[in-house]
């Protein structure tokens, strides 16, 4: 029986029907950060709390990764099976702008300002065949 394993602990709520990214928020200056950090990137305060980030936001910018990255890239792909993938920053309102893979890789279908939503999907498989889960954003329905 295979088990879904998150790519990193504490990155997003999992298992969950409606997973959310986990960020940290500074209690003195109210700045949010992703992923969670033990201190605030703006003021250096260690008084930070974990919070679930909004699951929807607007696309701030994007690109398409056209060639297979070298290590440390670690997917199930080979140079022959590699598929270009979208990358973007998504503005999560009231929180932070998060960098993410995008499920869309067609430049004609990506537009700055479009509404996006979070998904958690299988990114690769580990040596035992378990699905390794990671997050991405797709065009909101």
């Amino acid at each position: 029986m295979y088990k879904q394993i998150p790519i990193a602990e504490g990155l997003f709520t999992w298992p969950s029907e409606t997973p959310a990214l986990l960020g940290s928020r500074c209690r003195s200056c109210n700045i949010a950060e992703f992923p969670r950090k033990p201190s605030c990137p703006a003021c250096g305060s260690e008084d930070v709390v974990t919070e679930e980030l909004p699951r929807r936001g607007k696309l701030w910018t994007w690109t398409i990764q056209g060639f297979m990255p070298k290590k440390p890239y670690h997917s199930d792909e080979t140079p022959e099976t590699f598929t270009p993938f979208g990358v973007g920053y998504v503005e999560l309102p009231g929180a932070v702008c998060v960098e993410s893979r995008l499920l869309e890789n067609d430049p004609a279908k990506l537009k700055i300002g479009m509404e996006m939503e979070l998904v958690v999907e299988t990114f690769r498989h580990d040596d035992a065949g378990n699905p390794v889960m990671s997050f991405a954003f797709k065009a909101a329905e």
Partner: protein
Amino acid sequence: MDVAIVGIGIHPFGRTPGLSGLQQGAYAARLALKDAGVEWKDMQFGFGGSASAGSADAMVNELGLTGLPFINVANGCATGGSALISAFNAIKSGEYDIGMVTGFDKHDRGAFNADPKQMGIDEWYGEVGLMMTTQFFAMKIQRYMDTYGISNNTLAKVAQKAFSNGAKNPNAWRREEIPLEVISQSPMISHPLTKFMFCAPGEGGVALILCRADIARRYTDKPIYLKSAAVRSRRYGSFEVFAPSQALQQVDGPTVDASKAAFEAAGLGPQDIDVLQLQDTESGAEVMHMAENGFCEHGEQEALIQAGETGIDGKLPINTDGGCLANGEPIGATGLRQVYETCVQLRGEAGERQVPSAPKVGYTHVYGAPGISAVTILQR
């Protein structure tokens, strides 16, 4: 105490299979010593760095074991600029009269593969394919084009100019002009940037001899004065490479901060600059850096570049030696290559690529991961 550059040396950029990065640095060092009419034993200090070609201080094994203090500098793409600033301050302090700055490198083929751990980032970030400088530059120019109306054709024109200038530079790697449509139609690396709009990791070495300005004429009749040199790191809210998240509200980046600091220290402004070298790791970077360094307003680049004003004969000559696009990117050497080219231009020795207006003041700028910038202002 003012500071002058009295000797310059370069090893041609590109691929040199027979020489290590260190040997290319030593080659440049010998040329710089000869240019200043001094010997290695006359050097009172050395600052130098490389990212992938070993410790710069191992160069003493090539040049001679004289016992001088030699300090390795490592600061990403701002390594050369940081070494230069260290030397600048060492002489300004009155501690030393004369010394050397060097930067060299030798990288493997293909895109850089940065290690997330080195940057304080968790491993998942690299595993899912986000640890790519190319993506950052593409996403920065993508938003910039949307906000300020820069066209794809303008991105191609930046690369076309770089290769055209490189063709006039005997030390450049890419020495052939490339037609605009070939640049535009080359494979898309990271939308909107094509293959020929990106520089490639490469090899090369540069060395400079710096001394107290009051003794400069002992060594050369064409001293170039280092009016100012500034390095800045990012502040919270600037959009930077290798950032899993960034602030909702943007602030000016380290380039803007370093540029302002350098202009203020020199008592000069953008209108005083006759020739400039701006970090152009890809076409979009040159466009954005024009405004970030204060040489135009955001969005004005479109008209300036389309009118050819950034060419050697234009009113804002940028990257006269072909920049990173034609010279490649040996990380440790790039910042000093820009200073080398500026000295050549201010001396009036740039031959076919000489800016015709007898330039008096020059400007250099590098930007690198994870959000640092170094600027120098030079005057003859």
